[in-house]
């Protein structure tokens, strides 16, 4: 299991260091866990863990080369790291741990910290180091991850210095039963005057297209994010136009199959928040759950069939002699004319030896950004079924570099108000038998946002 967890700043200084197991310091197991950096005491205590801490700093943070793997093995000790802005989180172990679990835990750790104090920065970590130690003590025991749902944690790790006598016995046992319980993500007794929920279908559409317009690969990875403000312990059921469900239901009425069959989508795979009853999904393909309070990600899914590609990019690059390139890029929007795409950005890479660029575009603004080696063309809004074009002349400095320019793909960013996968929310039913509000009383909101993921066209 995880032997220790360290947080470093970008300089490699340790901000947080929590050791769970002695083995990570190896030989010097009987010396003190922490040792002074002072010459006298440092020698006396022979810091074993310091070795591990330093090993990571020297071999990873200060490494000359770019890191080639998120798992590093130094002297039979394995270091797992993730980076958030300029903060390094490293988990250390000597055992054959579940590697996927360690990374999942590190992400979770980031989520928990973010939920408590916002952005993960050196400043915030120093400001909250006592809290972080308290959290680390709670969510990792002897290197085994424990309940790490912020909803539950916030009930008893508050930084208010709860005095035990101020809690009633009921309160205490409520906390413990929630932390260890089957519904560890929600506490009892939540009340709202207005029962309301928001569903966001957030999709990122990914494309890799050949210069000739052939789709090399395309997929949508989507998320359904739910914000719930519901009283009690509501039982929810979520329905969407999943092909398998629709076809199953459609068996009874032939009408409906023909009507909704077209609109249904084939989902390649989906994963759910731990509140969703997976066995029920496996057997009936129904998505039922008791949601955590507030915002959470209900599900993730992926589709590859019948994707609506919101934009088509048609590149044309011509080399004129050795010192000039002519680039023409056409973009076409491919959705209902009544809808508007926003935040459109086309990025056309230019060679490193570019000396000057002239651009003419029909719409929006285009600029050559020397520091990024690209022409960036921005359009604020664009309706469906439209077309726009940019042409550029790139002057090159003559070089004797033998290596040809790699021609990175042209990439695009945008945001559209529909789901490129075609996913539609059919219903979200809420049942709370103990409290007197019904499904009809709940105010529900649904929003669809499609964004570009990696949307690239080779040129």
């Amino acid at each position, binding site marked *: 299991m995880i032997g220790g967890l360290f947080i470093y700043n970008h300089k490699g200084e340790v901000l947080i260091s929590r050791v769970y197991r002695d083995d990570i310091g190896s030989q010097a197991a009987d010396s003190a866990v922490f040792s002074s950096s002072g010459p006298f005491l440092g020698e006396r205590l022979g810091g074993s863990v310091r070795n591990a801490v330093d090993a990571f700093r020297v071999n990873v943070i200060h490494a000359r080369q770019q890191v080639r793997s998120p798992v590093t093995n130094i002297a039979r000790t394995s270091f797992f790291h993730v980076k958030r802005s300029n903060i390094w989180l490293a988990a250390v172990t000597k055992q054959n741990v579940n590697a996927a679990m360690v990374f999942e835990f590190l992400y979770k750790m980031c989520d928990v910290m973010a939920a408590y104090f916002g952005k993960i920065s050196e400043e915030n970590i120093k400001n909250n180091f006592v809290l972080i130690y308290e959290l680390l003590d709670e969510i990792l025991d002897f290197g085994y991850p424990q309940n790490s749902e912020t909803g539950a944690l916030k009930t008893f790790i508050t930084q208010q210095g709860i005095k035990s006598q101020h809690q009633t016995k009921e309160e205490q046992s409520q906390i413990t039963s929630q932390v260890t319980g089957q519904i560890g993500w929600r506490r009892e007794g939540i009340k709202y005057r207005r029962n309301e929920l928001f569903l966001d279908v957030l999709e990122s559409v990914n494309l890799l297209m050949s210069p000739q317009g052939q789709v090399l690969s395309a997929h949508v990875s989507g998320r359904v994010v739910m914000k719930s403000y519901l009283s009690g312990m509501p039982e929810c059921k979520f329905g969407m136009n999943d092909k398998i469900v629709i076809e199953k239901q459609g068996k009874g009425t032939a009408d409906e199959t023909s009507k909704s069959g077209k609109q249904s989508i084939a989902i390649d795979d989906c994963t759910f928040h731990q509140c969703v009853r997976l066995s029920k999904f496996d057997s009936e393909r129904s998505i039922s759950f008791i949601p955590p309070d507030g915002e959470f990600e209900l599900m993730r899914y992926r589709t590859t069939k019948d994707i609506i590609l919101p934009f088509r990019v048609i590149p044309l690059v011509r080399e004129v002699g050795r010192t000039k390139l002519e680039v023409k890029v056409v973009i076409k929007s491919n959705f209902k004319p009544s809808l508007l795409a926003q935040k459109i950005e086309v990025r056309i890479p230019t060679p490193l030896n570019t000396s000057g660029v002239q651009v003419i575009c029909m719409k929006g603004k285009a600029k050559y950004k020397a520091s990024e080696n690209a022409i960036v063309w921005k359009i604020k809004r664009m309706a469906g079924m439209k077309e726009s074009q940019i042409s550029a002349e790139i002057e090159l400095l003559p070089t004797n570099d033998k290596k040809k320019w790699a021609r990175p793909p042209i990439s695009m960013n945008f945001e559209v108000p529909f789901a490129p996968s075609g996913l539609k929310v059919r219903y979200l039913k809420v049942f709370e038998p103990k409290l007197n509000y019904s499904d009809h009383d709940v105010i529900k909101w649904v929003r669809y946002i499609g964004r570009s993921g990696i949307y*690239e066209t080779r040129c």
Partner: protein
Amino acid sequence: MTDSKYFTTTKKGEIFELKAELNSDKKEKKKEAVKKVIASMTVGKDVSALFPDVVNCMQTDNLELKKLVYLYLMNYAKSQPDMAIMAVNTFVKDCEDPNPLIRALAVRTMGCIRVDKITEYLCEPLRKCLKDEDPYVRKTAAVCVAKLHDINAQLVEDQGFLDTLKDLISDSNPMVVANAVAALSEIAESHPSSNLLDLNPQSINKLLTALNECTEWGQIFILDCLANYTPKDDREAQSICERVTPRLSHANSAVVLSAVKVLMKFMEMLSKDLDYYGTLLKKLAPPLVTLLSAEPELQYVALRNINLIVQKRPEILKHEMKVFFVKYNDPIYVKLEKLDIMIRLASQANIAQVLAELKEYATEVDVDFVRKAVRAIGRCAIKVEQSAERCVSTLLDLIQTKVNYVVQEAIVVIKDIFRKYPNKYESVIATLCENLDSLDEPEARAAMIWIVGEYAERIDNADELLESFLEGFHDESTQVQLQLLTGIVKLFLKKPTETQELVQQVLSLATQDSDNPDLRDRGYIYWRLLSTDPVAAKEVVLAEKPLISEETDLIEPTLLDELICYIGTLASVYHKPPMSGPPLTTSSVQMGAVDLLGGGLDSLIGGTNFVAPPTAAVPASLGAPIGSGLSDLFDLTSGVGTLSGSYVAPKAVWLPAMKAKGLEISGTFTRQVGSISMDLQLTNKALQVMTDFAIQFNRNSFGLAPAAPLQVHAPLSPNQTVEISLPLSTVGSVMKMEPLNNLQVAVKNNIDVFYFSTLYPLHILFVEDGKMDRQMFLATWKDIPNENEAQFQIRDCPLNAEAVSSKLQSSNIFTVAKRNVEGQDMLYQSLKLTNGIWVLAELRIQPGNPSCTVRAPAPTLRPWSLPFVPCQGVVLVEDAVQASLQAWLEPESVRSLKRTFLESFHIHPVRLPR
């Protein structure tokens, strides 16, 4: 107010200031001071001097302060064990606190304080907490058992915590179950033989129920534990799989991967004809693909695992090639792994797409990635024959780019393509030759030289090309030198007239001016071949080469199977199994064991412990036959010369290839003219060459040790077998083993270290001077107490006394005397072990009746005085007799002999002295 200020205090006299603050009356000030202490601790300052002052703050009802003090304690208790005891009272008190959070906190922290003295006090609170009414306390206590086991395993066993932990598997709270499973799994790892987890259909059912209810982490613990279970039949395997598959939709990638592990493992048990098998295969692909949309670090873990899965069951992902296409801004570690998988999935159906991709990648920025992409094109050519031509032309295109490392990489792979498809693509040689000057890497130079030498007859200026390399011969790496030597010899054999001088030159460079033994040897071989028999040289050097196989980079099957069991773990990331096996013991002597044997020896020789023999009849009449026995004995000894030596058992497999990454070891033990040897047969069943063999024994009952290093002269290539006789000595260190003749062996090679144990036949330990003096025999025999005697029968032994005697003698079991009582031949036998222990036996043979009775006192009983020893004494003799007779006996009678022995042993158990 922020906490970051605590990080900034660096002034002198800080410790004194802190001390004062810690002892302040004001609670707020105290807390502030503890925070400062913790901050100093974090940045590596030594604040252990404050120990008593911090511990004084422990008694507080402020939970936050308490946690800080605990944190301090965990870090410094080890350096101040005596003072840490001061904290014990508070812990014990806290374990009784009405607030479950505090009870759990206390038991959790206590387990982290790794001071022996404290662990004693931990037992009682822990016992209570394991049965606490609050699940939060129980789940914490479960982990605490694992902590305590890590500090003092014996204590945990003695206190019965393991049983309590096992009971927690049936707890009503899923999180308690999950933590108990995690703790038990960890403890079980350090006791591989114990059946600690005791997985059976009932407990599996409990785990599967808890699986649906516990946290994501708990699900991982349970799934990892399930993977260690072996279902009793395919039905059970299927029903477990059915209950595990819903986990594939979990948002946590680790849950998904652990579920994949269980499914991959249990699938082995399912019949491929089953409908369910196909369904399962289909269900596995989507979640694996989904893992690729996780964060890059997880993608990396997933890809390393997919790499294994694709090798084990290529059918799962064969249609998913596209998802492994590299994205421009994937991190480099993801790119390299994707590339690997792309090659594995390449087939005739998708090769066009793959090639187009690879060509794109070859123009990227990262040098490693580009090289790998070029290499991948070559591998595609070798893997998919239909694509070879396209690959070659793609490679030629890449060579035209003149990017140095691309060209070199391309030449290396083209060499392989030539070897796979001889006489097909040689037209490109001219293009390759153009790039000769730009090659600066040894591998590429060697590849180019190989090509020139191999196709010397088609290259007009081959001699010039090779000569150009020769100038800097001594600056080249060995790889290039060897290749150049071979290349020029090939050239000479093809065009002898023009290249005589060149070949002379290279041979003298290799043999006279080089101090590299490999190069020199190869040079001499060529030289002698060429000078003695040029025709033979041609046959040897220009022999047709075996085609190279397409899957040289596959993980070998035994290792792959092992790694599949480690899906999701670090082992699957490194593609190496975790370290296992006992550490090799050095040759230090364990005194206790020596005393045991030494004591036995002394008392045996002194004969002081021996009491009167059992049956009055035998010793009473012993005097008479001795005289005649003596002459018999002489007759016998004269016949010994014709016998070839002691019995040798056929070789048995000691270490199957499955367990040793393809190395199979079988062997047997022999004793010939006073020397013991271990005859080994090493077979390489792996795909790679094995070298650097070494052997070591663990301490054993008779101090057996290799007398010489294990000599395997040449590297062991795949499918090769080598036989080695390893001489053994008995001067190694001694430790009593169970059973007595158990030998633990470690064998090392370039791949890993492997461990196995075997039983050696005891007769290899019988020394040549094992014939006891007659008078001494008589005296000793009389003194042996009858309780120490064992008796057994050997049936179907159609031999007369002479034959038996001479056969036994060949195994160094000597007949001291012989007599005839009422028509039965009685043989009195003695033998001596290498450590000086004597064993005596009486054999009764009835002529005409094909069975003989062996009566053997167990002289070693007294000094060892342990209940299992008498059997050992008997087994000793029985083994010896059996071994020596085995050569004549039919297999059937060998078995019956064994059975008879066992039966007689059960009916007449050896009595122990009171």
